[in-house]
Every structure is written in C-alpha cells, then in structure tokens.
C-alpha cells in the first residue's frame, strides 16, 4: 500500500476507477495545431497517453504545453487536428469531472470565495456528493483553511486547492499543468508521491513541466515538445540512453599537446569548463594510456554523464536552432 506524507491514501473506500478502453489510448492527440493570430503555438502534434503510468509532458516555457492541455479539455478549439479522451472530444463527456480531473493554472480561482465554496460549486455541477468535498480538502491538507478566502492563499495552498479540484470526481484520468510550481520541498515530494500512487491505481496521469530534473524523478514516459512540435515520445530510460551522452573529462597542464595526441588517435575533443578537455567516444583507460605513452601528466581522468537537464536543453535547443534556421531560409 502506498504511503503519503502525513496524508491518507487517496481513494480508500471509494469505488475503483471505471475501466478504460482495452487499447489504452486514454488521451489521444492527432495532428493537433493551434494558431493565435499569426503565431503557431502547437504545430502538428500527435501523441497518445496511456493508463497506469505517469506520462510527463516536457518542454521549455512557451513550447505549447498549456495550449495542448487546454485543447484536450475543450477550452480552446484546435485550428486543425483533434484531441480526444477515450476516443471522443472532451466537450461531449457527461459529468466530465468524474472522468477527467485537471489542474491548470491553480491561481485561477475567485479570490473572494472560500476553498470549500469553490469545491462545492464544482462538485454540484457534476452531482458529486458534498461529503467528497470534505474528503478532498482533507486529502490535500487544506481542511484547516477551508473557510478562508482563496485570495489569501499562498501559491502552494492554491496549488493544493487546484489538486483537490482535480481529484473531486475521483477521475481515472488526471491532467496537471506544472503542479510543483510554488510548492515547498515537502509539497513537491507529496505531489510526486500522489501522482505515482494515482498511476499505480491504474489511472492515467499526464503532467507537464519545464523542468527535466523534476520529470526524471516522477514520470515513466516522456513526451517532449519544443515550439509546438513533438521532439520525443519515449520512456525516461530510453531518453537518457539516447540523449544523455557520456564523455571523459581530462585535466592536464599541457592541454594542447594532449589534444593533438587524442585527436591523432581518432578521439573527438571539445573544450570543457576550467581548461579541461572533454573526450568523446572513448574510455578513461584509453585516455590514460595515450597520455602515458606520450609522457603527458594528467591530473584528472574521469567519466562524466551529461545531466538529463543538459540533454533536454540540447534537444530543445536544437529544435529552436532548426526552426530559426528554417525561418531564415
């Protein structure tokens, strides 16, 4: 059984989520495109989000993540293409809060209304019992401030209210847009655990972030976009293997001679930080042996792996360069 940070398991005593189609294509985005005026926010995006795992939706700020999520939820109309939930548009769902829970911008709550009142009207729209409001308030730890006006909430409290709203209908599908924004470290651990638990219960969890490091700790599957285009749709493991290059870092008093030696042996060398060299496509042993053979002193020979964040930056950076070049041509 999953454990929460000071909180009860999320849906104990509640009916299990309704079964999902056997194909598991819970959220399906097909050739989705969105233009605002002359700007293309989402550019021919296609992907599928499946149940039982946390799927990360990663991209730099302005990549089109929120726009895509809004189109999935029927808030924005696609310029072209489709966004489907269980094979149909969100707009046709009956009592949608019982099917899909979403947290977009959590600060978008009436500032004069209490947390309890906000959840109450939401519950009423979908005929969700009033007792469930108390339940989710307790679940996210907002019970003590339930009667306080939402305008006086910190960003972290607003996030928790947004998560409470998403969980209100006990939905089998959950969308979170940048859920860790504004949360304190304890809150971040809490939301990570919550998302993993929700997925472990068989739910579909789709979460966006612009932080690769955050994604690496939470998600199993990654959908990476840049400038509205799909850059990667893969598991986190595969993403790391493909994009996180490793290299050998060498520190020497004679970097120019060593560079010649390594290059002569067919090793690609780049300048690293603090006057170090980065040798690619080789191993520490080869670098050490080559240095010894040429009588070169080395102060450090170590294997380095580029962080996931760097890999992500490189991937999205390429997308930006490609686009910039394409526009100039």
């Amino acid at each position, binding site marked *: 059984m999953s454990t929460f940070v000071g909180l009860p398991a999320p849906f104990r005593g509640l009916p299990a989520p309704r079964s999902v189609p056997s194909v598991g294509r819970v959220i399906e985005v097909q050739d989705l495109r969105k233009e605002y005026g002359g700007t293309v926010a989402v550019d021919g995006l296609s992907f599928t989000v499946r149940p039982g795992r946390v799927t990360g939706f990663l991209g730099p700020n302005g990549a089109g993540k929120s726009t895509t999520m*809004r189109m999935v*939820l*029927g*808030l*924005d*109309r696609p310029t072209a293409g489709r966004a489907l939930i269980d094979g149909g548009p*969100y*707009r*046709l*769902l*009956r009592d*949608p*809060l019982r099917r*899909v829970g*979403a947290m*977009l*911008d959590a*600060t*978008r*709550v*009436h*500032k*004069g*209304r*209490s947390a309890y*009142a*906000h959840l*109450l*009207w*939401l519950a*009423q*729209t*979908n*005929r969700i019992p009033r007792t469930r409001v108390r339940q989710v308030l307790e679940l996210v730890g907002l019970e003590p401030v339930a009667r306080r006006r939402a305008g006086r909430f910190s960003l972290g409290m607003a996030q928790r209210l947004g998560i409470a*709203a998403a969980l209100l209908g006990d939905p089998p599908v959950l969308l979170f847009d940048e859920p860790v924004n504004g949360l304190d470290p304890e809150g971040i651990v809490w939301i990570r655990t919550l998302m993993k638990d929700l997925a472990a219960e068989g739910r579909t969890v789709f979460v966006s972030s612009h932080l690769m490091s955050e994604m690496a700790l939470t998600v199993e599957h990654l959908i990476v976009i840049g400038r509205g285009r799909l850059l990667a749709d893969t598991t986190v493991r595969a993403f790391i293997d493909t994009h996180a290059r490793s290299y050998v870092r060498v520190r020497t008093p004679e970097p120019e001679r060593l560079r010649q030696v390594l290059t002569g042996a067919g090793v690609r060398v780049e300048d690293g930080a603090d006057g170090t060299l980065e040798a690619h496509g080789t191993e520490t042993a080869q670098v050490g042996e080559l240095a010894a053979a040429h009588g070169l002193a080395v102060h450090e020979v170590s294997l380095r792996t580029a962080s996931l964040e760097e890999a992500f930056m490189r991937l999205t950076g390429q997308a930006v360069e490609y686009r910039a070049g394409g526009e100039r041509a």
Partner: protein
Amino acid sequence: MTEVWAIVNAEWTKLRTVRSTYWTLALTVAVSAGLAYLVGHSLSGSYDGWDQDRRDDFDPLFASFLPLMVGQLVLVVFGVLAMSAEYSGGTIHASLTAVPRRGRFYAGKVLAVLGPALAVSVAAVLAAFFAGQAGLGGLGTSPGAAGVPRAMAGSVLVMTLMCLFALGLTAVARSATRVLAVLLPLLLLNSQGLGQVPALKPVMQYLPDQAGMVIMHVAGPQDDPRWARDYGPWTGLGVVALWAAAALLAGLVALRRRDA
C-alpha cells in the same frame, strides 16, 4: 433536466458565496427606497408653489419609480459581476471543464441570476413604491389605484430584464470595466440628456433604458406631446425584452465561439 438543475444549483452556489452579491442586491433595494422617499418628500414640499399645469401633470408614481433608474444601475452591476467574475478571477476554466457544454453553462448562469434579480426587483419596486408614497404624504396614491399594479409589474420586469441585458453584454466583453464603462454613462446620461434632444428622440427612445420608462411612469405624462413616445407601455417593455434577448444571444454566441 436534472443535469441542468445541477448547473443552476452550482451557479447559485457561486452567487451566494461571494460578498458582492449581497451588497449589490441590498443596495438595489436601499437606494431605490431611500431616494424614493427623498423625491416624494421634496415634491410634496414644493407642491404648494406649483401652477395648475404642473399640478395636472403630477403623477404620484413618478416620485416612487424615478429612483428605480438608480436602483437599476446597482442591479445591473450585480448582473455584470455575476458574469465578469468568471473572467477576472479566471474561474471560467474550471467552469467550462466542469460543464463543457457551453450553452448549458450559460443557461445555468442566466437562470441562477434571474432568480435573485427578479426577487430583488420585486423588493425594490415595493420598497420604492411605499417609501415614495410615504414621502409624498397626502399626495400619495394607494397600491390598488388605477395603473399602479401595471406600473409595479412593469418596473419589476424592466429591472430584471436590464440585469440580464447587462449579463449578456458582459459575456461578450468578458470584463466588468469594459461593460460598465459603456453601460453606466448610457443608463445615467442618456435618460438625462440625449433622450430629451428632439432630433435624437426618434432613435433614442428605443434604447433599452428609455424603452422601459413608459410603463414605469418615469417618461413624463404620455398625453403631453413633449414627452409622448411612439410606443405604449407594453410595447416599450417588449423593446426592453428584445434588447435583453439580443444581448443574451450575443453572449451565448461569443461564449461558444471563443477559446476560454
């Protein structure tokens, strides 16, 4: 049906859980009644100095219902805020994910506003009638007198329709400031100024605030060509209803077409 009722219920919860609802509705009644008493009192005080013409034109309902033009402004603000709060607070995202069929969401909103708007209009009209007549003292009339029930019913409907008219406009403009910047000067100044300019009168008399005035007895004596409108009280009410319907429809179209 239960689905629509659930949405109305939720919209009603939205209204009753913010303070602006209480102060706009209370102010609508208080302003109408307070001003009605003052106007009545001041008319009765100056009555002795009037010539016969003016005494012949005297309409005791004028004192009671002229202040409703001001009370109506506050009720209009209520209608505006009920819709603009969705956009200023950003609740619209939550509302439309909960109720993605936008026509239903909008119908729920309109019906939820209609209830209190109608109830408060009744309260304001009754309060204004009795306060105004109390201010008039001996010059006052009774609620059962000829023409009074019609004027009361008409005033209630005009006020309620103006509130819905404002709601519809706000659904188009999506901002309280934008709507009120247009509506308040129109409702305040048009009746005072532009409506009286002869050259503009043929058109102006059909503006929403003007059209309701005949049935409310605030358009001046209709047997006097200086004041007479090209339409009767019920037609005027119909014109207000058309304005409200047009605004509500425009709001629906805007809501369905636009991205949230």
